[in-house]
């Protein structure tokens, strides 16, 4: 079972934060096909948010084809993001580490690295369109 946490200052709608955390848990291998998500009641009893927010997030996960609700039982993960799981891409991560060492050696600090990464990610996503 995974726990959700909400960041009030992030500016991201709470239900989208939950969706994001499920995706991330899938990528990190914390969740996989067949796993049960916490019930709405369990989530709100932990993070004190409106139950409709959690229901909405779960509906979105169903729409994305990541989860399915079994009435009276709960909501279950129906797809793994296994191929994209981080563990399966150790060589890529190693390359990124090497690049980070180079970036620091070139005098870039963390905010600079982050900005460069985000920019490049955005540019490359736009090029692919």
């Amino acid at each position: 079972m995974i726990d959700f946490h909400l960041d009030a200052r992030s500016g991201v709608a709470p239900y989208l934060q939950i969706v994001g955390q499920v995706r991330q848990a899938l990528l990190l291998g914390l969740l996989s096909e067949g796993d049960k998500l916490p019930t709405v009641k369990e989530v709100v009893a932990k993070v004190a948010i409106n139950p409709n927010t959690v229901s909405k997030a779960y509906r979105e996960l169903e729409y994305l084809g990541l989860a399915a609700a079994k009435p009276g039982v709960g909501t279950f993960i129906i797809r793994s993001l296994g191929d994209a799981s981080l563990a399966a891409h150790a060589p890529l991560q190693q390359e990124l580490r090497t690049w980070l060492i180079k970036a620091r050696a070139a005098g870039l600090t963390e905010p600079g690295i982050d900005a460069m990464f985000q920019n490049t990610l955005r540019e490359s996503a736009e090029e692919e369109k």
Partner: protein
Amino acid sequence: MNAILRAQALGKKYGRREALTDCTLEIPPGHVVGLVGPNGAGKTTLLKIACGMLAPTSGRIEVLGEEPNGAPAHLAKVGYVAQETPTYASLTVADHLTLGARMNPRWDAKLASARVEQLGLDPKQKAGKLSGGQRAQLALTVAVAKRPELLILDEPVASLDPLARRGFLRHLMESVAENDTSAILSSHLVSDLERVCDYLVVLVTSRVHLAGETEVLLAQHYRLVCTRRAESDLPPGLDVIWAEHSDRQSTFVVRTEAELPTGDWSAEHLELEDLVLSYMERAAAPARRTTTPTGDAR
């Protein structure tokens, strides 16, 4: 299902002082409603009318489809937790549950004792010896165990420290999710309610200034920042809620149900707290809204 609360031109006067003026609301079922407003705005008056403890001086109100008249059948449907979450100081925690069981036909004894155990309250402890947070939790337990369709809570977290506040809201949300209960809770702080409420009513100086689903309200409001200009130079269809002008810049909070027209400004959505504050400021200083960039009141 019936509306949680339907009010038509509802008013309440204490002598000559108006505590509630021309209040018209229609709140659909299944919501957790935040009633927000500064102290003295009329929140308690509205909530007391809603549970039948006060009679309005004008207008009509229905709660869960019925006029709140203090009849036992209606009282059983509404759980009310008054300000400062009162309990009986000389009675024990267990006494509170016994009393609740005797007075409420739909009392859920299992739920009540499970909750007391989960909260770690000693059943033999006198309520007067409990901490503020524990007392609030006990009051909520009693209100929830009567299995109401609607919970009405007046400033339930105002006097609690942040930890007790979080604990109380968790318990409240769990009860709402478990029993499909609707709830109305008031606060003078938006931040207390931001995450738990999906419907918002802003009450200032005895009047309702804003009401609607939180998500819809957030989507309809924008903050526009532009070169200094008069309100009248903005495109039509924008309801200006709040404006502020510096020597070269104007900032507007606007509401529009249509898509925001593009223009020579930067536009962003507001956080709920800023949104509510702009309505409160407008209500508190109506003159300010109509100031032009030259500073002349129109």
